[in-house]
């Protein structure tokens, strides 16, 4: 892996104004408060329904952060990141149900398979214009739908795959209550936040941003454009597949539509799009807003007997962001509050 750049070669470090320092400190403190609040939920008078909703938010933040790496930092528009989610879920599930391999191991197999698929997709398309990569991700999603429907014995076909239930079990990474998943997903969000921050400040991250901004100029600056894109895609695919392990243990089931469908593909993109592409805070804030609004509207929808309102809400949120905050919440709305802070 690439070494981090020395302090003096980074942006914003040479002459940090005291104001930027204060903002950075404030962002850290808010983050810490949010972290502690979430971590203490099981000890507060909060029911499991709410905790489960928070877990959903944290899982989508993790997945969104993974997409953010390739699309936000790297500028590669993946419209089918569900491929890596699905490969992660199905691999973990099949290995567990059919071969009794615990998800602790299965998830790594899923990550390796995702890396292989990313490698094939990348080497076929990343030397061409960006639109070909975007199309390839869509094509791969469609192919995966067919594959997962076809191998019924392994995947359960169109009905999907449900994990054999073992109750509370460390070995099977299963739990009757959502609290353990709360800590697991919180760990993922924290880890992925730091990974994103690390990438943004690393040599690889600068190269990815250079390629995102201008490929021709990046090559003229000595950046190996293809290799940089490929590395970004691989990191993102592995992050997605690992978070998929958590997804599978929490939801206990996967089906072709949930893994490779259009609405899943959109949900993977929303946290970063709403929160702010290419920032480490973006997917966190965007994912929280996204799940909060969808929970509220779904709850309201059930009251009046309408289901599936969340998809509509996602669409509306995206529209609002594109029209009024094209750089996302972090980039547009909180721009001044977070100026100089590590976004």
């Amino acid at each position: 892996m690439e070494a981090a750049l020395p302090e003096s070669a980074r942006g914003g470090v040479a002459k940090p104004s005291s104001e930027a320092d204060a903002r950075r400190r404030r962002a850290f403190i808010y983050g810490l408060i949010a972290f502690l609040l979430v971590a203490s939920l099981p000890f507060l008078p909060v029911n499991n329904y709410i905790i489960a909703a928070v877990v959903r938010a944290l899982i989508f933040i993790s997945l969104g952060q993974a997409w953010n790496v390739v699309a936000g930092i790297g500028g590669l528009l993946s419209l089918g990141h569900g491929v890596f989610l699905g490969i992660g879920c199905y691999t973990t599930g099949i290995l567990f149900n059919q071969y009794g391999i615990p998800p602790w191991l299965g998830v790594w197999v899923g990550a390796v398979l995702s890396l292989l698929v990313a490698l094939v997709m990348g080497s076929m398309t990343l030397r061409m214009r960006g639109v070909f990569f975007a199309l390839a991700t869509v094509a791969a999603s469609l192919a995966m739908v067919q594959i997962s429907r076809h191998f019924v014995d392994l995947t359960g076909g169109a009905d999907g795959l449900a994990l054999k239930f073992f109750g509370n079990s460390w070995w099977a990474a299963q739990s009757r209550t959502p609290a353990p998943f709360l800590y697991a997903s919180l760990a993922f969000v924290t880890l992925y936040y730091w990974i994103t921050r690390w990438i943004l400040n690393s040599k690889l991250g600068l190269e990815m941003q250079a390629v995102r901004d201008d490929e021709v100029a990046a090559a003229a600056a000595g950046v190996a454009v293809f290799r940089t894109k490929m590395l970004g895609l691989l990191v993102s695919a592995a992050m997605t597949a690992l978070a998929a392990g958590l997804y599978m243990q929490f939801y206990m089931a996967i089906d072709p539509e949930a893994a490779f469908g259009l609405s899943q593909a959109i949900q993977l993109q929303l946290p970063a799009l709403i929160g702010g592409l290419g920032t480490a805070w973006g997917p966190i804030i965007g994912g929280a807003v996204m799940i909060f609004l969808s929970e509220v509207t779904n709850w309201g929808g059930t009251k009046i007997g309408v289901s599936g309102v969340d998809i509509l809400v996602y669409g509306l949120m995206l529209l609002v962001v594109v029209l009024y905050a094209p750089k996302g919440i972090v980039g547009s709305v909180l721009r001044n509050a977070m100026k100089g802070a590590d976004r």
Partner: protein
Amino acid sequence: MNAPAVALEVRNIARNFGGVVALRDVTFSVREGEVVGLIGPNGAGKSTLFEIVSGNIRPSGGRVAYFGRDCTTMASHLRRRAGMCRTFQKVRLFESMTVRQNISVAASQCLPKGRDLGEEVNNILAQMRLEHQAERRPSELTLADRKRVEIGRAIAGHCRLLMLDESLSGLTHDEAEHLIDEIMQLNRARGITVIVVEHVLSVLAAMVQRLVVLHNATVIADGTPSEVAHDPVVIEAYLGTKQKALR
């Protein structure tokens, strides 16, 4: 003393865009340490030649050699790492990154072993007089400073041949004078070979030892500024209408 090495040799280069002949049978060479002007009217093929030499596009025919090594099919980022550096006619910076990061990303690709990256970036910032702009983003800079950043990014890390595509155009007289000073300083202090594309001939005449004239996709003259200025073919084809520009 030995004769200086040939830094760049362009031999029989040709390039078509569909039916448009942008370059045909272009041959010339540049010795190490020279400052050479490449002139010619709009559409003569100057930028296309830079694109080919830097590896951004492939020639339809001909060879490019860099310090004696054929590099016609070498990837452009590898040419840059070998010290073949360029700017673009329309400035191309990494707009979301700070000036420091713009320079740093290039410097980190090809810094010789044992040199400190932070120090190199600071040196370049100082050399291009960009210290006070280091934490700004390109969109906050004047055109002159944007061109400085692009040159800084071009030479960062390792540079033996610098190709400037109209880096002086669009600047005020003073800005252009300053930039020329800096370019000549790079040539003298760092021993960088320079090829300048420009159509403001009066500025070029003061800085270059040699002019290569491109007209209708091919080289029509190659010599000292005064030789070129008195070349009947050049006067006929190009300068005849632009005598004033030369003075």
